């Protein structure tokens, strides 16, 4: 079973409830937060923009690839869009599997691939400038 969404705000209680599965011995959750610094400078806030329909399609493809590779009971990918303050969760990857090894490997695969392929863009706001992350060499 999988759940893939783009939201304004991530609710971690809902995430955990949804991942519960009596047949799953292990749940791995990766939560990406807004860090308070980047390249040694203070980040004031972040903004995420997404090409929503394509982002959802790419996330669905990654989920399908993971479910083919690992025996996953439940898989969840949620990304927040819009303006985010320091410490707010911006992305959650969750997998529930019978054996913990699979949950660790699948979550790691999903967040790594999400960061490579899903058309979502992060803009960091520093006190003196803004930067679109990864855009320039």
């Amino acid at each position, binding site marked *: 079973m999988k759940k893939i969404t783009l939201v304004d705000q991530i609710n971690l209680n809902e995430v955990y409830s949804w991942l519960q599965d009596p047949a799953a011995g292990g749940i791995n959750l990766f939560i*990406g937060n807004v860090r308070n610094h980047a390249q040694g400078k203070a980040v004031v806030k972040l903004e*995420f*923009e*997404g*090409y929503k*329909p*394509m*982002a959802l*399609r790419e996330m669905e493809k990654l989920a399908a690839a993971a479910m083919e590779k690992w025996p996953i009971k439940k898989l969840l990918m949620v*990304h927040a869009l819009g303006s985010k303050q320091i410490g707010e969760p*911006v*992305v959650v990857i969750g997998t529930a599997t019978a054996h913990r090894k699979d949950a660790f490997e699948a979550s790691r695969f999903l*967040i790594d691939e*999400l*960061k*490579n*392929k*899903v*058309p*979502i*863009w*992060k*803009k960091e706001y520093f006190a003196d400038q803004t930067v*679109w*992350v*990864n*855009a*320039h*060499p």
Partner: protein
Amino acid sequence: MEVLLFGISKELMGQQVLSLPVDSKIANVLELKRWILNQYPEMGNLNSFAIAVDQEYADDETPVSGNQEIALIPPVSGG
């Protein structure tokens, strides 16, 4: 033909959607990338950019036409 813009491309090109002139005669992704770099040389400073056709990453040979949903995808940075 129209091209959806996001993130830094939207800012660099100063618009939400890029409209290509009718006589631009662009037949595939490679020609579209060249046209963009020619018209907006600052796009050459990016790490790279991709083109999506109908919400799928497309390679250079993929044909493009006005009937498709075409988007310019600058380097992604989600997560």
